[in-house]
């Protein structure tokens, strides 16, 4: 068997149903000398390493989901996700960016319709955490240059019809007897990393709209017009001041 075929068969077996290891395909089994330890037990070492390590990665990046559904349920969901969506390359920092879509179609999670948005929140926090380092726009730069504002690489925008920021705070309170209503209205958020940790900022509708338009590389004057079209009360000066302070925008200086 060609090496490429050996690797493909080995990979397919690792991602197959767990029971497939108990009775590996004959042509695969014929590749190995086994000795005292039967082949299924040997293959299980690999399978446990692969699925175990990836499950650990998924659980570590979803502490809020763990609080909401419990460790065992998250583990079950993560294992199914991993077998259907194995990583596509060798760096796992951003692994699992489709977990929200998987949860949305996961039958056992249908009773919790806000769960995909909570996954989106955690994915955004993770992406902000690992985003490349850059420097923020300062007020001085605004005075010097013609304006073209870009969001920093760590800025993520998220809109949910559930109060996912409040659900997060609820998760972190760690009081199992408390309950909260998830129907108190939606929220628009900016998730970003001003320092070393991901931070969540609640946004006004007009503010969210303006950032979203800017994120599509729209020139500043057009972005203001577009936002004023849909939000008559948009306060551009207040917006600019607040987001310079928050360090939302990328510096205009090159080589940073």
């Amino acid at each position, binding site marked *: 068997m060609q090496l490429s075929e050996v690797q493909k068969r080995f990979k397919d077996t690792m991602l197959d149903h767990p029971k497939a290891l108990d009775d590996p395909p004959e042509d695969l089994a014929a590749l190995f000398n086994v*000795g005292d330890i039967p082949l299924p037990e040997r293959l299980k070492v690999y399978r446990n390493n692969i699925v175990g390590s990836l499950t650990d990665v998924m659980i570590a990046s979803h502490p809020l989901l763990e609080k909401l559904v419990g460790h065992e349920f998250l583990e079950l969901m993560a294992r199914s996700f991993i077998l259907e969506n194995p990583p*596509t390359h060798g*760096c796992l920092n951003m692994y699992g960016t489709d977990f929200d879509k998987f949860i949305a179609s996961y039958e056992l999670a249908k009773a919790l319709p806000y769960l995909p948005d909570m996954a989106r929140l955690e994915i955004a926090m993770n992406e902000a955490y*690992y985003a490349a380092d850059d420097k923020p726009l300062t007020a001085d730069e605004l005075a010097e240059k013609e304006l073209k504002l870009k969001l920093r690489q760590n800025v993520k925008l998220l809109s949910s019809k559930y109060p996912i920021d409040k659900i997060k705070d609820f998760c972190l309170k760690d009081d199992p007897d408390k309950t909260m209503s998830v129907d108190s209205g939606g929220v628009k958020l900016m998730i970003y990393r001003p320092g070393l940790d991901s931070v969540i900022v609640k946004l006004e509708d007009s503010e969210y709209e303006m950032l979203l338009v800017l994120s599509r590389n729209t020139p500043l004057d057009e972005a203001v017009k577009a936002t004023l079209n849909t939000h008559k009360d948009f306060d551009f000066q207040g917006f600019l001041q607040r987001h310079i302070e928050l360090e939302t925008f990328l510096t205009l200086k090159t080589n940073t």
Partner: protein
Amino acid sequence: MSVHLKHNEPKPNLYPPASPPRDPVGIGLRHPYYQEVTDNPPDVGWLEVHPENYFGGGAHRHFLSKAREKYQLSLHAVGLSLGSTDPVNEEHLRQFKELIDIYQPFNVSDHASWSASGNAHLNDLLPLPYTQGSLDTLCRNVERTQEYFGRTMLVENPSTYVAFAENEMSEYEFMNRLSEKSGCGILLDINNIFVQSFNHGYDAFEYIDGIDADKVGEMHLAGHIEQEVGDGIILIDTHSRSVKKDVWDLYEHAVRRLGAVPTLIEWDQDFPPLSKLVEEASKARDIMNRVLAEDIANAAE
């Protein structure tokens, strides 16, 4: 071999230049140790990290930058999948090279194994048959990586739990030929040799004696677990325990043959206090010093 020119823009030299560490024992810098290593740098000669954990930016790079101000660094990759019949991922190479340019490691390495097939990367060090065909594949990917980096790399012998019936040579012959053909150095993992020799029934000391001594640029030590399977036992390389006595004995044999090669204590799960890693590192240093003292005494006689 031509040097890749894509990333040749001059970079400010932020850190002390790479040099072989004066104290040859190092430990793995992992997340739970970031603050302590920054605040109270432990008494070891160098640090090792997996470059994949530092792709992108943020807190991980912040602490790596702090650590590099005080220590020499070895970048030990787990994600290049050098044994895959697919070519090495160019984006992975680009991000890895960026770290090499910034942090100037004294060693750069990955494994003689594969992880990726088609569009799936399985995040484990999977076994290769030791054949001429595997050797050609591995050499092609190692050569591509060395060309991109503009430097030689080390390749490590993995732990394996299956042995291929079609093997045409022993693992140490495979590693020697890889080194000879691609020009890479060998990263000799002593624990992996012990685990392998137990799992597949060969002589670990013979392996050490067979390896090309002048090619070994780094050694690794780690703990493993014994797992009962039916009537037998299989050893699993977990990096979650202290180094076992048998592995220390094998290491001493390796030091006698190979000299004071930079040696790493690896620990990747069930993290103990940092002091435990420093203690293990001291043991390795003591073995090197004792062997060196004996050599000098023997030479004087």
